[in-house]
């Protein structure tokens, strides 16, 4: 399929890249990433988060380098280095990746609802409702999806004020002594940060939709900086709020932290937090669905509207098969690992390949 240029009216302003990336990075992982990292890096867990964030800046720089060189999306890059057939074959793997990503997010969120609020809630019906909403959004086109990403960040932002209640109980002595753990343990912590941090790789897919993509670079980096600081700050607060063994037992540390909140008009704040979180994961889910269906269009020439329906139906069926806590943990674990390999191994390799091919073609 020829690389059709995107019409101007479908394009987005460069600053919106900020909301796309932050909303994709802040998702279900933010509810409970602290435990996984503290397991390895203990009181230095916040350093792990910081290191992971810094490395992601490098990866974002690489992604832009790839995209600028081929002037298109990831499919263009694949075709550029490996030709039409193999290029499309490589790209089709990512349909599966984003499908699993969307599924992981939704299923993990459903687990939170079932454990914290309604143990008997039906997975099928909730998924159906959520999918219908997402299909509706994606039918509105990419610009609508971006709009949801914007609201997915701005509307739930008030939640961060709530952490003020935790500050009262925080004892920052818990963070001492700094750098007492081995460098290897800290890096292991950074590695486990991957599921929470992945999501920024979507730039590879919507790049052709950005007006003046050159200008969007700084917004992308600003987005990574924001999420890094946010996650580092939250990690520090969590470490000083809990004692270590207590944190190790809290599967959703962020939610457990909200249990201390007391306001005259609301007895249990977690319920409001969890309900608001459905707005936080909505852009996560929509963007992954959009990318998956967009890839179907680019590779197999399937109309995007039909692609979304197809993926939705498959999700609706598959999600019923993930039943226990272990299975949810497993799928989270795998998605995190694949995300890690994709971002930290595949992208640098791809960049090298693209640069080599460019040199060869010039000759």
């Amino acid at each position, binding site marked *: 399929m020829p690389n059709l240029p995107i019409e101007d009216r479908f394009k987005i302003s460069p600053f919106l890249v900020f909301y796309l990336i932050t909303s994709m990075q802040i998702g279900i992982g933010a509810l409970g990433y602290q435990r996984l990292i503290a397991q390895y890096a203990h009181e230095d867990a916040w350093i792990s988060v910081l290191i992971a964030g810094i490395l992601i800046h490098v990866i974002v720089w690489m992604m832009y380098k790839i995209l600028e060189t081929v002037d298109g999306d990831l499919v263009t890059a694949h075709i550029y280095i490996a030709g039409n057939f193999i290029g499309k074959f490589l790209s089709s793997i990512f349909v599966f990746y984003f499908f699993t990503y969307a599924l992981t997010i939704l299923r993990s969120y459903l687990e939170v609802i079932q454990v914290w609020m309604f143990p008997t809630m039906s997975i099928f019906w909730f998924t*159906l409702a959520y999918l219908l909403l997402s299909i509706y959004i994606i039918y509105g086109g990419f610009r609508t999806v971006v709009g949801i990403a914007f609201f997915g960040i701005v509307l739930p932002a008030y939640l961060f004020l709530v952490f003020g209640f935790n500050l009262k109980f925080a004892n920052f*002595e818990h963070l001492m002594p700094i750098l*007492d753990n081995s460098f290897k343990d800290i890096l292991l912590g950074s590695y486990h940060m991957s599921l929470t941090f992945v999501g920024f790789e979507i730039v590879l897919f919507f790049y052709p939709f950005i007006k003046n993509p050159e200008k969007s670079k700084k917004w992308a980096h600003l987005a990574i900086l924001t999420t890094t600081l946010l996650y580092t700050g939250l990690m520090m607060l969590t470490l000083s709020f809990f004692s270590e*063994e207590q944190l190790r037992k809290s599967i959703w540390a962020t939610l*457990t932290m909200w249990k201390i909140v007391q306001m005259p008009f609301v007895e*249990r704040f977690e319920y409001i937090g969890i309900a608001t979180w459905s707005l936080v994961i909505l852009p996560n889910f929509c963007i992954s669905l959009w990318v998956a269906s967009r890839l179907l269009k680019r590779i197999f020439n399937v109309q995007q509207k039909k692609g979304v329906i197809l993926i939705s139906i498959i999700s609706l069926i598959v999600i019923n098969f993930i039943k226990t806590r272990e299975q949810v943990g497993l799928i989270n674990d795998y998605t995190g690992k694949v995300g890690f390999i994709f971002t930290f191994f595949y992208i640098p390799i791809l960049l090298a390949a693209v640069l080599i091919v460019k040199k060869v073609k010039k000759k």
Partner: protein
Amino acid sequence: MKNLFFILLFLMLLTTGCVPKSIIDDINIEAASAFDELEDDTFVGTVLIQEYLPDQSTENKTFTATAKLRRDLLLNIQRQSSEPLHLGGLMVTIFGDKLADRGIMDFVDNYQRDPSIGARNYLATSSGSALQILKGEYGPRGNSAYLNNLIEHNMKYRDLPETNLHIFIRDFYTQGKDPYLPELHQINNEKVEISGLSLFKKDREVHVLSTDKMFFFKLLADRHSNGSFKVDLGSGREAEIKSISSKHKIKISKKNPSQVVIHIKIKGVIPEYTGEQITPKIVKEVEKALEKKVNKECLGLVKQFQEQEIDPVGFGFFHRKQIRGYNFKRWEDDYKRLTFKIKTDVNIVETGVLE
């Protein structure tokens, strides 16, 4: 296509009833509970439920049941309740003497697992029957509100160091710190008092600190925000210090890690003095007297803890945090050898409205 979408949307609305409802009038909300152990190793528990009457007063209802196993307790209580029992409104939990001696973590663990229970719940121990405390009648606002407020204002403004479910669990799991809880005592059927502070070794109560020591304990373990204290200056002169706020800093001296230096800073106001006039000289005298008293009492307390091998102040925790690469396995021996130095700094900032 658009019509189909709206039809589906309409159908979605019909499915909102999928989750069982809990209507506030049709459930019993547990407001407080008490647990104890009987002679023959069975658990006994009482649950307090409040019914809000139309004239804005509340009626206290209690259910008591016994069980061999802890988890059967609630089941047995459910059997007596006319409406399903919900744990969401729990405010205070009291553990009886015998249970506290045996260890309460099983019960507390249950609380931390249950997402419907808030982390600000108050836990307390009792001298005398824990169950009887819930069965009293403490005024129109209901027993749970009474107990809750009793503990709350004593923590905020008086000598009780702050604790709640979260702090108890946090201290329990902190290596090198032991938790503490307030102890309640029922004076009669209409009154309950705070009779001391239960100090724990892990989750077993080992000592009850008397109320007159609590002021000094709070200086060590927490911070005062609005305390008061009477200083005896000898020859019948007394000064009352109010609005006391305090801070403490625990440092392990770099040269000699077996010495702990505790800096206590106290700020206060003297509104009452039994002598003739408050002069700067007398203010100095009061400051000195209080410093001396605090030094003596606090030193006594930490030495007592050391003998009892409990660590409610968290010296072990400070060792772990302030000495790089500290091997915590050595702590038990190190604690026995620890020496303490207390430096108190009292500052009287005001002497009331009269000169």
